[in-house]
């Protein structure tokens, strides 16, 4: 199967360009979070986790959004590259979603006094995590026996339907109850981030996380692509071995 040049080139470019910026950005973010940014007056040092928590959340939304768009492209074009792009996006998104679910409780324990509460945003995040965990499970279960194509189609539908479901989940859980702080827009219309350095740190961390996401996504998509090629080569090798197998008599020549 031919590759989609646009996807292939994007992956290659991201893989080549991003490692250094990600490394430097991460170093800068860590320095900013732990030394440069002032400690929040009310919450104390634990508030610093916010600079990783929020960018992770944004990245995971970006990832799941990308997954549903590429899934739609896959259903439309039936090209394996789109499926790989979607799968890589979900895998990367799950990483960030897990980071959100881990950093959240660490902050919540000293501030709210509990590790977890059934608040709108927390519940939505958890349900989102479960939907895309189901996506990965589906991929794992469907395997590659049928060329993975029916599994890929179901997964694509799940990614799209799951994304459509998000507004309903948000709406329902918000109607249910909410206590999560809305940091960026408080009810008085001002920002919860009092010091300009806090805003700068948040922007720096967000940029770092975004390019880290792009890099991880490219790596994931490329490794899936390589998996496909290995499978293709193995198949070709098998056929070759079968064609010439009458005199070699062993299956050693399969790779």
């Amino acid at each position, binding site marked *: 199967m031919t590759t989609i040049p646009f996807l292939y080139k994007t992956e290659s470019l991201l893989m080549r360009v991003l490692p250094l910026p990600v490394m430097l950005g991460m170093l800068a973010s860590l320095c900013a979070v732990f030394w440069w940014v002032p400690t929040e007056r009310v919450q104390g040092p634990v508030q610093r986790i916010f600079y990783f928590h929020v960018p992770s959340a944004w990245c995971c939304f970006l990832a799941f959004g990308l997954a549903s768009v590429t899934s739609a492209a896959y259903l439309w074009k039936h090209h394996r590259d789109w499926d790989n792009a979607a799968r890589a996006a979900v895998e990367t998104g799950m990483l960030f979603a897990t980071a959100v679910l881990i950093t959240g409780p660490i902050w919540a324990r000293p501030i709210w006094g509990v590790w977890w509460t059934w608040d709108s945003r927390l519940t939505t995040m958890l349900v989102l995590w479960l939907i895309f965990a189901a996506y990965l499970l589906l991929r794992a*279960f*469907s395997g590659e026996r*049928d060329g993975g194509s029916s599994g890929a189609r179901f997964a694509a539908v799940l990614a*799209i339907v799951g994304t459509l479901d998000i507004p309903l989940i948000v*709406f329902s859980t918000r109607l249910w109850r909410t206590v999560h702080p809305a940091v960026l827009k408080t009810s008085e219309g001002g920002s919860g981030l009092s010091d300009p350095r806090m805003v700068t740190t948040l922007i720096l961390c967000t940029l770092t996380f975004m390019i880290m996401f792009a890099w991880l996504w490219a790596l994931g998509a490329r490794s899936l692509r390589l998996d496909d090629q290995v499978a293709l080569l193995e198949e070709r090798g098998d056929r070759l071995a079968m064609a010439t197998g009458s005199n070699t008599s062993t299956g050693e020549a399969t790779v």
Partner: protein
Amino acid sequence: MLTLLARDLRLQFRRGELLASSFVMGVLMLLAFNFSLDLSPDNVAALAPGILWVAVLFSAGLAAGHGFVGERENGCMDAIVASPLDRGSVYLAKFIVNLLLLLLFEAMLLPVFGLFFELSVLSVLAPLALVLLLGSIGLAAVGTLFALVTVGGGGRDLALPILLLPLEVPLLIASVKITRVVMAGGGFPWGDGWVRLLLGFDLLFVVAGWLAFEYVATD
């Protein structure tokens, strides 16, 4: 489409084991809840709506996959997909069958539910039936869409409930909330946000299923 609908209905009712197993499963869940939550007259009113819906949700989730099991065994699905019938209509036919089965299951479970927990189901029957209907439409829509997953076999039967439940979270919350209002004798809360949510969920998934079936059922 009507032919397919009639055929599926006939098949399901002739065998009937799906309905029977769902019913037993539902009753078992009521039993399990009774013991695990230590129900008594003073907490039953608060907990009963949730119990009813969790029992319905899980029984429906487990049963959802089996609608297509017979199709897989005799390769019937291939024939249906190969027929000139529009796949959207196949989805609608399967959806209606699943919905009817689900409603029948609920009709069987409801008396047991009322009996076990000493709730006067009869006095609020009309609004309660409406909530069950609206909830079931959503459940049947999601279930039918992903039931085809199990046709592939393997560990996929396991994946189905895992896949369905997170998607059904808004439906569960809304249904339980409305049921609580209804069971308290408040009538059907038409203008409520929850009702709108439930209707939105139903509409979204029936349409999404109808559109997506085109892409899913191409084996």
